[in-house]
């Protein structure tokens, strides 16, 4: 268990997942939009 207890750990996991999903979606949509414009 990381410092801060279960609630804090849960929040950190959700934050990590949200960031990673955003990065992945960004690459996917970004490449298609970039290609559409070029």
């Amino acid at each position, binding site marked *: 268990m990381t410092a801060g207890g279960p609630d804090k750990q849960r929040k950190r996991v959700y934050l*990590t997942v949200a960031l990673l999903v955003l990065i992945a979606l960004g690459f996917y949509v970004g490449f298609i939009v970039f*290609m559409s414009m070029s």
Partner: protein
Amino acid sequence: MSAVLMDEVPHEEHPTGIKRWIFTTNHKDIGTLYLLFALMMFFVGGVMALIIRAELFQPGLQFVEPQFFNSMTTLHALVMIFGVVMPAFTGLANWMIPMMVGAPDMALPRMNNWSFWILPFAFTMLLSTLFMPGGGPAGGWTLYPPLVLQTGDAFPFVIFAIHMMGISSIMGAINVIATILNMRAPGMTMMKMPLFVWTWLITAYLLIATMPVLAGAVTMLLTDKFFGTSFFNAAGGGDPVMFQHIFWFFGHPEVYILILPAFGVVSSIIPTFARKPLFGYSSMVYATASIAFLSFIVWAHHMFTVGMPLAGEMFFMLTTMLIAVPTGVKVFNWVATMWRGSLTFETPMLFAIGFVVLFTIGGFSGLMLAMTPIDFQYHDTYFVVAHFHYVLVPGAVFSIIAAVYYWLPKWTGHMYNETVGKWHFWLSAIFVNVTFFPMHFLGLAGMPRRIPDYALQFTDFNMLATIGAFGFGFSQLLFVYVVWQCARSGKKASDQVWEGAHGLEWTLPSPPPYHSFTTAPEVK
């Protein structure tokens, strides 16, 4: 989140029979599922390889139609990359990462279940294309337009299958990162993590950055084919070469996705059997990160012959050659770890040493291919086939086999049959070279890739390669036998299993309990 709920709910209870495997959220069960799936697909992809090699045993057309031959080369690659090496490493990650960082399970166990169970559907769909009108995909695993757009009814199914594989990989990668960043035991700082955990963390970032790019590329293929767009259609103002750029922006980091976890495995095994700590731990971490960074700026070395500006060719040649530096650091460190160590040569160590030697041969031929003027000669020849098979078979595949032998006693609680294991290694090591070494000569002599027929002067080396391939294929049955036998019975394995093994995973009983660390261990 099992880690959070661990103190509140008893997790040792779980369904039995088929329900256990379908609904499991346990990292060990899911790891086993991934590994068994990879093993099954290894034989599916292997049969395809043997069909290719049987056809190439002699010049002329013997067994299959050229269209089917091309489907075999295409599907062999897709199956081996997305169905064998990637799932096998994800299986190893599932089994070992929570145990290595002192966590009870992965951070997102339900998503873990989902990311595995997508795969059997994706590959059923991919393989079903062989039975569709127009046959399976036959334009090569790189899916270059405009050729790939000539695929028959199979086309949308292939694209959908690739999307599913991508989603599965991204979910797996998110889980690995979330676990490593948030669930380490107290005292397990980043620079105390085992190299396998480090290499997987970096691999997971590569996956998150590149799989969406592949998904974007194949989505654009789909809209070009069915919705009237012209992303890659020159007649509509698009550019087919742009597909190659996007594909290889995914494809080159993908190469490192396939090999970085292998570096982690070898960095775990060699210190154990040399009975010495890993030489240059921090330089290994930085070398891995450097390779990952460089992997994003080398992609066009796959495309030297498309007609790039000279400055572009120079840039991609030099960045590619630069990768040899961190890779050299790694090979040096493995050798330095063995130097004056108290070495013993159990099967995992044999496969790890085989990896170091044979992967380095693949690395050297890669360095040759990195040189633009030389690549003009070698491009699309069997030299390229020899190169990437050296890094993927005695590279990635040997490391997966080494990892299974290394951790199998921990997983099952039994020692495997060392004699059969050693036979497996020596037969594999000999036949892998008989298969792939002659391909260097074939390529240098000008034999092109992806053809079912060839000129007479290439016959001898092709015959040799085919004999090697069948030998290698049948040798792998020994592996199945050893794993099967070890899972059922064998000498009881101790907790530490190997005399020189260090790390949290070796403090757990063999086999470990259903949930690894119900109370977090203290790392000094």
